[in-house]
């Protein structure tokens, strides 16, 4: 069973990554995609002379919003009510699913059309709907591809990035009954269009997530490219939006910052094709029944951590994923998490509260810092990864790896013990080195030795040389 399968059990990152790097096709696909998006992003960001000022504003607005979140959520609720919408609150995944299923059942619909929403993936909404006999049709092209292939999405933003055009063609030929399809992207997109259009035109219920919700006006914002978001949020009679509470921003004006940061960071465009901004219901235009479901599901847990809470600023642009050299080699499935890449390695343990297996996600990084440099809301991702590592260690105090490191730490705290450790290493290595190089790689060195040589500890350390040559 491939790691991409929806029912694959979660693996610890090192093992999942080991399998992923062996998949040359995924590596090639991800590499191609990363190179393309990096170039585009650099180009449109380079056009703006106020990019750093926008990042400063974005970070500050989010920091402020999280600090006043209780006040803003209450204000958002009032604003949405005043505009004719209804607001529901859900403490966890089960509660959120129950609310949504109940709302759909009230309409009598057996089918809903869905815009991609990472939160609904997190809570497993589609499964809950299916259990209630309601079919949820994913309408983003990549989500459709994943749904047809029965695979998990592998990227925050471009969920089918792990598939190339030939693989998609083969899938569509089989599952959409189009045996004649070529692998030309335009033709593939047209096949998806035809397949979904019928569903859009008859849909009675749409389900969406939200990129932002403005407390001041009660406006919900969805940023997209294909038009399926507009289809789901303006054609059906009933619209249900499921949103994490951290998406709340204070004021209408704040959109002027995020609508610049998000498109340029996410797809390297000056602006994405469609942004929908609706406020409650409006007579004669679009859904006449609107429900906003505010979901916690671990967000208040993340919020309670004064260091870790910065991760809640995330606007889901995926810029960090685009530049991550680790992601580049493994793709998204190896993270076994709705949120992959650098931000995923932080959000996953924060939101789930699980710091056991796979507690390996925060360690799935070389801490190169490329992510922090591009984050539009200035999340110091490397710092938060280190913070998560501390939390993992604290949660697993008998963790094997920390014991040797603690021992090394104690040795380093005293020059005498340090020098003794150096001499010990030199003595112990005799059995496994020859001609100045390791020839066998025992214990923790095994991983190193599979692909790299390692020089032996030389006969004389620097400080021994200094003492001998320079005296004292």
């Amino acid at each position, binding site marked *: 069973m491939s790691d991409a399968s929806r029912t694959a059990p979660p693996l610890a990152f090192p093992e999942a990554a080991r399998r992923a790097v062996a998949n040359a096709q995924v590596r090639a696909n991800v590499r191609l995609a990363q190179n393309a998006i990096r170039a585009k992003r650099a180009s449109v960001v380079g056009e703006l002379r106020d990019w750093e000022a926008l990042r400063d504003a974005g970070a500050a607005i989010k920091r402020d919003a999280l600090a006043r979140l209780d006040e803003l959520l209450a204000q958002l609720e009032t604003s949405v009510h005043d505009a004719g919408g209804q607001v529901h609150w859900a403490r966890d995944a089960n509660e959120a699913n129950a609310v949504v299923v109940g709302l759909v059942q009230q309409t009598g619909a057996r089918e809903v059309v869905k815009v991609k929403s990472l939160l609904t993936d997190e809570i497993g909404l589609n499964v809950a709907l299916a259990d209630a006999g309601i079919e949820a049709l994913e309408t983003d092209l990549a989500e459709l591809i994943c749904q047809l292939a029965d695979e998990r999405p592998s990227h925050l933003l471009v969920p089918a990035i792990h598939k190339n055009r030939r693989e998609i063609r083969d899938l569509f030929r089989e599952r959409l009954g189009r045996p004649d399809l070529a692998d030309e992207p335009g033709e593939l997109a047209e096949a998806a269009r035809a397949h979904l259009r019928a569903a859009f035109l008859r849909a009675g219920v749409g389900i969406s997530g939200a990129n932002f919700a403005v407390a001041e006006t009660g406006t919900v914002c969805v940023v997209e490219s294909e038009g399926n978001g507009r289809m789901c949020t303006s054609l059906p009679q009933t619209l249900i939006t499921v949103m994490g509470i951290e998406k709340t921003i204070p004021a209408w004006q704040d959109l002027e910052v995020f609508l610049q940061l998000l498109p340029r960071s996410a797809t390297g465009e000056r602006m994405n094709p469609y942004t929908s901004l609706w406020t409650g219901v409006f007579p004669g235009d679009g859904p006449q029944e609107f429900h906003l479901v505010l979901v916690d599901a671990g967000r208040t847990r993340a919020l309670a951590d004064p260091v870790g809470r910065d991760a809640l600023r995330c606007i889901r642009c995926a810029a960090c994923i685009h530049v991550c*050299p680790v992601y*580049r080699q*493994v793709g998204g499935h190896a993270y076994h998490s709705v949120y992959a890449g650098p931000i995923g390695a932080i959000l996953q343990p924060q939101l789930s509260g699980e710091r056991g297996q796979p507690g390996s996600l925060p360690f799935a990084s070389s801490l190169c810092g490329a992510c922090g440099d591009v984050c539009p809301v200035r999340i110091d991702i490397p710092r938060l990864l280190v913070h998560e590592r501390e939390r993992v260690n604290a949660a697993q105090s008998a963790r094997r790896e*920390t014991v040797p*490191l603690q021992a090394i730490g*104690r040795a380093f*705290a005293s020059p005498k013990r340090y020098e003794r450790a150096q001499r010990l290493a030199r003595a112990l290595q005799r059995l496994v080195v020859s001609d100045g190089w390791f020839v066998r790689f025992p214990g923790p060195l095994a991983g190193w030795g599979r692909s790299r040589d*390692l020089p032996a500890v*030389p006969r004389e350390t*620097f400080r021994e040389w200094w003492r001998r040559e320079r005296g004292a």
Partner: protein
Amino acid sequence: MRVALFVTCLVDTLFPEVGKATVRVLESAGVRVEFPREQTCCGQMHLNAGSRDVARTLAERFVRVFDGYDAIVAPSGSCAGHVRAHVPEFVDGGDRGVPERVFELSQFLVDELGVTETGSSFTGLLTYHPACHSLRMLRVGSAPLRLLERVPGTELVELPDAETCCGFGGMFAVKNADVSSAMLDEKLENVLATGANAVCACDSSCLMHVGGGLRRRGSSVSAVHLAEVLAP
């Protein structure tokens, strides 16, 4: 000016030649180098592994050992970067201004001393790999290149995708050895594509990883530290 050498635990133990080259480079620039024997390790590896307490102990030691010097020079962008960026937040009772007096070698030569020539006789075609922590944490900028450009017998060729991590990442190299190796493969592809005789960096950690990979492949391309290129 009292200048101390912070040799770093890695160079001290595994790459003493880099330490010796660093001393020669500094002395050729007219600097009298002292070596405080009490020094051990800056604690970066421990912080990154999530052992904050150990990192704190080592940070406090660092401040005590190097207090009193006007400049502390290290042949490592990541160690210098760690001390400057992280040590201040660790030390209860103040860092006595020590972190801001810590410099990586090229940074010290170019930005503090205004020196760009070191009397090196290194020859060959060279490519430079900017180690991530010197690039992003320390922000060493163009100092290494400005020095390398002035080495007479040496021609520099640009490394494609230079700023992409080589895959070392400390414990990451063994805990996630497969990904680390995959990242190394791509870095080596780029190094070999330059046709250079040698790849150079400010960090022995990256060089150990890149050099180890080159040797395993039987390549004649060597991995040399900036200090070794610059040393007269």
